[in-house]
């Protein structure tokens, strides 16, 4: 029920169209890349999904992370503008619940983007590497890969929401997010410990990664989500106590 209210709140902010356009832009990366450089990739004997991911995922992950940073900023900015958050606080609603609902909404929006990107990958794999893989194994492969990426996106989303909920304006969380993203782009993808930085996790990919690394990152992602959630709960308590 409350999730519906959250959806209504963002109706006129343009978040839905932004995610739609963002998803299409990100989906265009592999399409354009394959259109212009297909010959180069065809020579490789790797599975199609791995080729596509290693060629384009860095760029797409960056766009995705930018999208969730912007999304987090606007989800909370809507509350802070004209002091709506104080009105929300006077209702019988917990602030932590508000946070969780915003997070769920953001995850749905993210899922939407990933579906568009997954469709683009499936199309590319069928169009340019058609003979190598059947349709259903390909589809399950795309599904698994994007599921993994989606899960590793969550800590970054939570952290962006945490910074957005802590700052009352639009530019501070945006600036912090952009700086963190910049830092994440400088972290080498094959360094497992540095890649645990929440904003660096979305750059990881499943294809071509060893099973133990995958388990390591999934566990780390889950732990980070819990830690950030606890930090938000603690932050809300402390802010309430000193308000």
């Amino acid at each position, binding site marked *: 029920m409350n999730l519906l209210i959250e959806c209504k709140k963002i109706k006129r*902010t*343009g*978040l839905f*169209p*932004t995610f739609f*356009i*963002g998803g299409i*832009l990100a989906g265009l990366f592999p399409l354009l890349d394959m259109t212009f450089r297909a010959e180069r990739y065809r020579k490789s004997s790797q599975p199609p999904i791995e080729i596509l991911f290693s060629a384009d995922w860095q*760029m797409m992950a*960056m*766009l995705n992370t*930018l*999208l969730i940073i*912007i999304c987090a900023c*606007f989800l909370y900015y809507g509350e802070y*503008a004209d002091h709506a958050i104080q009105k929300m606080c006077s209702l019988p609603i917990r602030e932590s619940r508000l946070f969780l609902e915003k997070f769920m909404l953001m995850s749905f929006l993210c899922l939407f983007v990933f579906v568009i990107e997954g469709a683009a990958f499936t199309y590319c794999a069928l169009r340019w590497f058609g003979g190598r893989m059947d349709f259903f194994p390909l589809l399950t492969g795309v599904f698994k890969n994007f599921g993994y990426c989606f899960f590793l996106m969550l800590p970054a989303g939570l952290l962006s929401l945490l910074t957005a909920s802590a700052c009352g*304006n*639009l*530019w*501070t969380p*945006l*600036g*912090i997010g*952009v*700086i963190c*993203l*910049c*830092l994440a*782009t*400088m*972290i080498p993808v094959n360094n497992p410990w540095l890649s645990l930085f929440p904003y660096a996790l979305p750059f990881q990919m499943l294809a071509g990664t060893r099973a133990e690394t995958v388990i390591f990152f999934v566990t780390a992602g889950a732990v980070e989500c819990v830690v950030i959630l606890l930090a938000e709960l603690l932050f809300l308590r402390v802010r309430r106590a000193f308000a």
Partner: protein
Amino acid sequence: MNFLSLIGIECRKIRRSKILLLLAAAVIIYWIPSILNARLNFTMQAEGISPEHNFMIQGFLGMSWFIFPASMMVSIVLMHQTERAERGMLKMMALPVNMAKLCLAKFILLLMLAVLQLLLMVGMYYVSAAIVTRTQNYAFCLPAGLIFREAGLLFVSSVPMLAVFWLLSVCISTPIFSIGAGLASVVPSVIAINTKIWYVYPMCYPFYVITAEYGKLAENLSEPDLRYPLWIPIAIGVAVVSLLISCLMFGQAERR
């Protein structure tokens, strides 16, 4: 109202915004990985570039690709949001202030923030070069003339990009679209500089210019061609037209 005092007022508006803190944090955090990975500078024999030049140019490359355009976008958000909060824009329009002048004053403020960030960048370069000189026992500091030349090139080549960002933020009144468009347009500049028609994409100018500088410093790399005859007229045209349109459109959303 006199143009200089307008700029002074604009400066006062962002006094308590902590934007300087953000710009400085961006630059400081940005140099830390370079300091930690300083050893990699000695492995660039294939490119034929000396370690100290490599350290400097890699810093400027990353800066011109993402963090500089992105922090300028954040500054633009700040400038628009301070005006939109509490209907500041309507109050400005009620005063005897020329809207085009106000728009230009804000753009000048943006350029000032850009200069400030580049100065911070230069300062931080010297700090990190000094640290790396100590840790690696190799003189990493380069003469100030060269560093200021790179920073100056980066600034001049980014003016058309900033004008386009400004145009986007003035014309698109829904903030999320203008921010999204600005930030998203930064990402593909890596692809744009590798195409033949890079000069039609203003967002890649700073990155292209710094890449060209890299080519000049590294003996074994082919130098990207900066002498495309139409580039400078196109760049000036883009900047002037964007500024003209944004001056005309400034405050239109509030006037309705």
